[in-house]
């Protein structure tokens, strides 16, 4: 193990430069989130991820944000284990009927001010699963959504651009 650690000290870091915040995300946020809340939260964000019915594809790419290439924590953004520690709920999936209450209770357990980011095409309007007896719809059918990040699933770079927009104080 010591050899490996020494070897890694000699290699250049793999972490890549930050992408610019997504313009569409900035526009959506400017319209929905007031500046005071953004100044309060905007330097460091604690995120609680909630899978409300996803196929697990979005989760894989959210996970990737923690790998050495994207290294999300360098921006002051980190994933937390409890909604009580969170500023942001990152919600994936079409919201299933069976997950609706758990999602609402997670939201209520998150202290204000808080933002909700809906991740993935399903989270916008239910996607391919819209219209099923078991699906409520997109996240906004259940919670007020501040930002949508589209994709099936969105790539880590797309996710990063959206999350950086949250940090970008207007």
């Amino acid at each position, binding site marked *: 193990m010591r050899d*490996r650690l020494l070897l890694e000290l000699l290699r250049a870091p793999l972490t890549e430069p930050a992408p610019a915040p997504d313009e569409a995300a900035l526009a959506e946020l400017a319209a929905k989130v007031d500046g005071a809340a953004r100044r309060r939260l905007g330097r460091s964000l604690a995120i609680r991820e909630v899978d409300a019915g996803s196929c697990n*594809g979005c989760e894989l790419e959210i996970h990737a944000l923690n790998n050495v290439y994207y290294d999300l924590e360098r921006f002051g953004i980190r994933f937390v284990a409890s909604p009580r520690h969170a500023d942001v709920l990152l919600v994936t999936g079409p919201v299933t009927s069976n997950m609706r209450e758990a999602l609402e209770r997670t939201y209520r357990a998150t202290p204000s001010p808080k933002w909700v980011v809906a991740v993935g095409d399903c989270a916008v309007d239910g996607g391919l699963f819209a219209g099923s007896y*078991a699906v409520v719809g997109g996240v906004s059918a259940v919670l007020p959504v501040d930002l949508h990040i589209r994709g099936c699933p969105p790539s880590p770079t797309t996710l990063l651009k959206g999350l950086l927009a949250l940090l970008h104080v207007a």
Partner: protein
Amino acid sequence: MSALAALMRDANRVTSHQPWPRVVVKRQAWSAAIDDLSQRRLTLLSLWGEAAAVQMALLDEPTGEIAVLGLDCPDGRFPSVGARHSPAQRLERTIADLFGIVAEGAGDVRPWLDHGRWAMRQPLGARVASPESPMPYAFLSAEGEGLHQIPVGPVHAGIIEPGHFRFTANGETVVRLEARLGYVHKGIDHLMAGAELETAAKLAGRTSGDSTVAYALAFARAVEAALAVEPPPRAHLLRALMAELERLANHLGDIGAVCNDAAFALMHAHCGMLREQVLRTADACFGHRLMRDRVVPGGVAADLDPSGQAAVGALVELLRGRFPALPRLYDNTASLLDRTVTTGILRPDLVRQFGAGGYVGRGSGRAFDARRLPGHAPYDRLDFTVPVQQEGDVHARLRIRMDEVEQSLRLVSQCLARLAPGPLRAELPRQPGEGMALVEGFRGDILAWIRLGPDGRVARCHLRDPSWFQWPLLEAAIEGNIVADFPLCNKSFNCSYSGHDL
């Protein structure tokens, strides 16, 4: 005569069902099949419902024969398989939830996917309108002095799918674990019915996001069987190439994540780097990191150009250079082995009884791999071994993955070497038919069964995730372990929630 051939004697064969026979049997033969299952002469591949029938897919492991037994149940009842062969229990509860068809004599009649939250009961059967009324769920009991319960989920602490785990513990030791699933039930069976093939293939590819290639492949193979269409050779090789890239990405992710759950972050960082390289190569070659919607009925929807071939070749070189150091690091880290060796032991007899596949089965001595048996193109002409371990602990399931990384690299190289110019897709006729396929995803064998209507649309599609026969075994493997080792055991299984909940 094999056990399966004996069951099918005198039964009406459905001629349109391919590639394996489907027969419509009477109750007597159905009960004889239950005898065979409970005596371990046959393995249950799946059990699913229709409007007024149930179907059971069976495997005769010694001979490699596969068949589907159908039983008409006009009165909405059938003799319970689960009463004598427990792997069928949750499948039967699902049939009751979705179709309202009752398993006679079943010991466990609690609803499974239906949490009382849908606007209707029996959504694929009578469609009885019902106001939302959450049902209390009676967890199985455990009695004794000093026992306490720990409820976990459906929202978990990590970035993972939702499900509820109910632990009963004596101090630190788990006495009983029971999972309650169904939280991500999206109604895929319902959405499939009446769908055009293109939409249905997309749904199949979104059943379990980490296995999108394997699901799309299983669905495509079932459709091709039903329509008697064979994809061109180049499509077969590209499909296998994508399937092996998917296996590599998932195994790398899992190896890192299991070690991370033992607080060994270094392995997680290295595996995360290699996994990202696989996904980036997939993106560069096929235009999508997870290769979603690239396998389609009839062939593939993306080609691999010469620069893509070079990129895959470079990826194989990178992994061959970097990966072998990681199993060595694992083997030389005593504190890590201390967590994985003898933790979460799964007994080989349970694996055989449940017909569990993937690293769960192969870690406990069951060598089954759908690429070998029943086998499918192009694997019948490729050289690879199926690693098997006997110990059944977290360590064994991890070792299987490490060995499979090497095998997948060999397979990717062989696919590249054999790739010859040619068409990518075969034309599909619009006609009725029935087909089934068994495909090896990274997690185990995925079964897809399809019936196409006269208009060429999907009349009924059933997808069975490997997790159906792995989730119940996690409950057995954790017994007697400490609560703190549950994340480790759970990750070593890495069962799918979405693939199971449908």
